[in-house]
């Protein structure tokens, strides 16, 4: 059977990751598909997975009673959704909805966590990649906070 390793290797998140680690990770990967409008996960649920998006678009939403669902971020092809699986208590903080037909690789959280515990070098490689994404998200969030385009009063 063909493995997902070449698919993982092609995703920007795993760019230049050594093949031995890739094959370890591949063991935790599965192909998933979400129709437009369906949810990848819901706030408060256990974060079983994180997702490398191959195609489509996922929106992160939070529900505000008087406003309804507010989208705070979208992720598309080549991007990644989810880091709740990394941090206890491993629960989703947002709803993740497929805004269009979305194909992704799901990475099993428990599987990855145990592999990282066994092999800290793998854990370090993964964390470095996550930190870089977290930094980008934090910078973007700071810019978002500045609310640049509104009329200042």
């Amino acid at each position, binding site marked *: 059977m063909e493995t997902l390793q070449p698919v993982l290797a092609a995703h920007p998140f795993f760019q230049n990751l050594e093949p031995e680690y890739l094959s370890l990770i591949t063991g935790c990967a599965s192909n998933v598909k979400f129709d437009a409008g369906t949810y990848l996960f819901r706030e408060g649920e256990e974060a079983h997975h994180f997702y490398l998006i191959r195609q489509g*678009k996922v929106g992160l939403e939070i529900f505000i009673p008087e406003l309804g669902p*507010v*989208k705070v971020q*979208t992720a598309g092809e080549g991007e990644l959704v989810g880091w709740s699986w990394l941090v206890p208590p491993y629960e989703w903080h947002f709803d993740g909805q497929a805004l269009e037909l979305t194909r992704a690789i799901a990475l099993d959280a428990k599987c990855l966590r145990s592999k990282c515990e066994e092999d800290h070098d793998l854990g370090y490689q993964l964390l470095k990649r996550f930190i870089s994404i977290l930094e980008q998200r934090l910078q973007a969030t700071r810019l978002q906070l500045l609310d*640049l*385009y509104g009329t200042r009063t």
Partner: protein
Amino acid sequence: MEPAPDVVAIATVPPMNPVPCRIARSGDETGDTFTLELEPPSESGFSFRPGQFNMIYVHGVGEVPISISGDPHRTDSIVHTTRMVGLVTWGMKKHRRGDFLGIRGPYGTPWPMDVAEGNDVVIVAGGIGLAPLRPAIYDILARRDRFGKLVLLYGTRGPSDILYVRQLEEWRARFDFDVHVTVDRAIGPWKGNVGVVTTLIPKVRVDPENTIAMVCGPEVMMRFVAMDLLKLGIPEEKIFVSMERNMKCGIGLCGHCQFGPHFVCRDGPVFSYAAVRRLLGIREI
């Protein structure tokens, strides 16, 4: 960058006297922005270069600099998109079709359209910043084969703040124009991107050494965008930004628009990032 001799200006003697121009059309873009189309004062028409601005006078109220957002290949109209933020822009909005506003211009340095030929072009706009970039887009599309890839990254606060929606849809339908729109936050049925405009930059696929970037938006946004464009590998002298400062005269005489050694009205508004990078990092300059 000298203005081309073919530019038909509404320049007057004395140079601060506005020339009345008739409003041919006025329409809302978003809740707080609107577009005016004015008729040139004479049959010789009006021409300008993408990125330039006019001073617009409302009788008895005041005068403000507003970027030109029309098609530079058309000389029969003067188009401005602006936001209602002060007395003069409110006054402009109150004027109807058939009324007259005072115009003088065009002033300022243009986007580097000639330099951009043969290059990929990345246009990054934030909010109302799309207005001064639209003429550059018109110009490139009018002679599309002379440029490489064309990418527009456009960010606004929310879906209802997006300017030129129908035009964006038309542009996105083209096979030779890569259009990406994102909003800072979305409430309701928005299916597009959510995230600040910088989040679109890593996805841009251009030949960075041979790319011209044109950036317009709030100053802080331009700083962050420029940093991310540098990360893509676009050299700082190929990134251009459009600066904003208080302007009273538009012709380099009143001193208000100074930005370090630059008079924004005369040496700008369009500057290469290389020329202003250091100043942009200094507070209250």
